[in-house]
């Protein structure tokens, strides 16, 4: 009996224990756990989990579907996946950068709404040339996000206000102020959302004719990739990244060695805010083209768990975002094919996010088992 228990411990310890790429291995373990839990749920509903998971992949364009309607193919689905993934990449990077500095930025949603709104109002309805408009939209996203981030950072630095409380309040303020303007000035009478922006300002090219297909092409996916590597470079190789991480692990020691802790906090929040702003414009002026009033995007909160799943590593965030969005965009196909509610996919995502939020616990557990086993080994051998 004891031996059997040991086998479990040993295999867990060897998979999640200390060593190279421990965090990455734990992330995979979380994914595995949630897929297993999801499979149990599906079995309880009398559905074949294998079919369910393949249909998620088919729905998101990773695997080919059985048949496609006219002018659509796997490529269309895949481009849609990229289109929806871009905002998540920016949002999770925003959370990750702040977390590295010991800050918990839950204002991503609020910043997204504000930057999306500002870009919509300032550029969305104008007739500027397409390329200029798109660049302007991105700049506005960065600018608005950075300003809000700076405000949060400054409040923390100057008045020692808790950034979480400030962020929650800002989410409300932004959401209500923006919905006031949308409802009174910009509302589309049919959809009750803001009026759709003009195509020239939209970051996603809609229904582009290509290979006889109609494809939505996101123009900013490459930018997202570049930003991922820029942030990685910033964190790993630069003086500012060093200071940011130092403040994140120990403010006293950072102060002791001459780092200006307050300034570092503010700068970090500016970067985090700018990234959230990019998430906002790519979401509201890319994946979508209008803003729904009085709703803050769920994506901004999911980004927290995605950043954790990606271990606060920019590359990790990239892949974690992709993974989550595969689930999200495969949902429709899953529910129509298996006749289950759309919520089942949402449930699996939530389970995954839940497990990834507990990755810290798995790490401790892995280390602990390794320690215990090492000890026993010492005694037996």
């Amino acid at each position, binding site marked *: 009996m004891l031996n059997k228990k040991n086998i479990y411990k040993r295999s867990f310890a060897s998979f999640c224990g200390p060593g190279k790429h421990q965090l990455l291995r734990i992330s995979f373990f979380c994914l595995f756990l949630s897929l297993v839990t999801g499979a149990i749920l599906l079995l309880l509903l009398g559905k074949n989990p294998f079919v369910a998971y393949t249909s998620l992949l088919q729905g998101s364009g990773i695997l080919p579907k059985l048949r496609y309607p006219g002018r659509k193919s796997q490529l269309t689905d895949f481009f849609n996946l990229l289109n929806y993934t871009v905002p998540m990449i920016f949002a999770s990077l925003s959370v990750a950068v702040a977390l590295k500095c010991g800050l918990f930025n839950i204002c991503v949603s609020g910043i997204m709404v504000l930057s999306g709104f500002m870009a919509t109002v300032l550029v969305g309805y104008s007739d500027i040339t397409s390329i200029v408009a798109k660049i302007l939209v991105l700049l506005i996203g960065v600018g608005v996000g950075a300003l809000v981030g700076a405000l949060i950072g400054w409040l923390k630095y100057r008045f020692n206000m808790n950034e979480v409380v400030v962020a929650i309040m800002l989410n409300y303020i932004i959401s209500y102020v923006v919905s006031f303007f949308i409802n009174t000035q910009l509302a589309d009478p049919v959809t009750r959302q803001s009026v759709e922006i003009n195509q020239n300002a939209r970051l996603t090219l809609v229904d582009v004719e290509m290979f006889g297909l109609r494809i939505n092409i996101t123009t900013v996916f490459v930018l997202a990739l570049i930003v991922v590597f820029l942030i990685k470079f910033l964190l790993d*190789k*630069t*003086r*500012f990244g*060093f*200071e940011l*991480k*130092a403040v994140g*692990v*120990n403010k*006293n*020691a*950072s*102060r*002791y*060695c*001459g*780092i*200006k802790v307050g300034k570092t906090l503010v700068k970090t929040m500016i970067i985090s805010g700018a990234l959230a702003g990019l998430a906002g414009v790519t979401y509201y002026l890319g994946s979508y083209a209008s803003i729904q009033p009085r709703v803050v995007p769920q994506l901004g909160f999911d980004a927290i768990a995605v950043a954790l799943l990606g271990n606060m590593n920019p590359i990790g965030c990239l892949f974690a975002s992709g993974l989550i969005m595969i689930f999200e965009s495969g949902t429709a196909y899953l529910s129509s094919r298996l006749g289950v509610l759309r919520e089942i996919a949402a449930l699996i995502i939530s389970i995954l996010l839940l497990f990834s939020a507990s990755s810290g616990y798995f790490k401790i557990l892995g280390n602990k088992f*390794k*320690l215990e086993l*090492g*000890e026993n080994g*010492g*005694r037996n051998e």
Partner: protein
Amino acid sequence: MNNNFVELKNISKVFPNIVANDNVSIDVKNGEIYAILGENGAGKSTLMSVLFGLYEPSAGSIHIKGEEVKITSPLDANRLHIGMVHQHFKLVDNQSIAENIILGIEPITKKFGLFPKINIKKAEEDVALLSKKYHLEVNPTDLIKDVSVSTRQRVEILKMLYRDAQLLIFDEPTAVLTPQEIESLLQIIKSLRDSGKTIIIITHKLDEIKKIADRCAILRKGKLIDVLDVETTTTKQMSSLMVGHDISLQIKKEDNAYGEDVLRVENISAKNSDRVQTLNNISFKIRSGEILAVAGVSGNGQVELADAITGLLDITEGQIYLSAKEINKLDIRERIEEGIAYIPEDRHNVGLLLDFTLAENLCLKQYYQEPYCSDKGVLNFEEFHKTSDQLIKNFDIRCGEDGYNTVVRSMSGGNQQKAIIAREIHADSKLVIFVQPTRGLDVGAIEIIHKRIAKLRNDGKAILLISLELDEVMSLADTILVIYNGEVQTIRDAKELSKEKVGEYMMGVHTHAK
């Protein structure tokens, strides 16, 4: 039945990569004071943690009064009448002394026969009674945060007695006390023995063992070296057994003439983060080639003094000059660049970034400038590694096989301290501030650090040494400054002061006589 209270038989405790206890067997007789002597890392604390139920032994057995027992938690230990005073007190600051003592086994009455309520009156009476019985004077209603360190220690002792402990374990009990307080603690321990308690005391101070212990076990590198009868052994024999070779803690200092004033502090006052006045009108100066040692009981403003000079704490009044340049308006980094090196008291929370690598920690004071960082702000890790290799070699920093990539958290306390000292000395500053540089380190490491300090002095640096260890102050200082309640009690040439005299100043005895 034999006369042994506790027998540890063939205890081994293995951690990954390290054997903390290797087949150690000791027996402690009823009613004796049993000392356990050893360097840091010799396995004294581990052995006692095994006895107190904090660790499970990897092998071996524990026998209490002849019967084999399993102790898996401190609760078991309590049930077996074993109590322990830890090196760092485990007390709740904002509770009263009585509340702390009864914590976990509160006397309960039922109000209206229904609602359980802590009978604090009874607790206070019990504590008062207990404190009278054992001559451990405390006022049960005082809050812990308002009482002195020695009172806190008495509270810890009372806590054990309240739980009816028969075997009392003391882990380095004198580390934080003044000479006078140590004297009275030793008296207390003796009288506890005389009233029938059995006592184990962990220490590396030989003279204390000589004064009170009956027998003494010596551990070295996890192994039991010998059990000695204290009366027939000299401290010299003990120390060479403990370290494995003869050592001398006497520092050879050349008589050198002091140079120019390096640090001049004029009438500074400061408040700490709770807005309590912690420094009051302090003035002194340190010349190059001089070691100025600040003696004082813990919490009398020493840390704040160091923080004020380095810029971590803002001063409210006064001026600080470094080589005639006023520095009290400069920020922390500017002061470092002017030439202040600082080895802080709290090496885990201030001196090091524990989750960073050794290389990053060794370059923590220079990482932002050439050659470690280009002017565009890109770090050059090659340079980090070069400097690290050099420092690791020169200062004999023992890190794992990962070398400079070792995460500092995984290194031993002594090596962490060596890393800080290596970094600060490498900066080649005019003024070096040491705060408690040898706390928690073993005799071997202390010797190395003391030699480093003496060498720095002989090289013409100005040194501010702040220490709670009076022996350290006495053996290193050229000039002694005694601080009490944030005020300077006296500044004198070290040769004019005896250890006892310094102790009196530390207690503030001369405050009113002045």
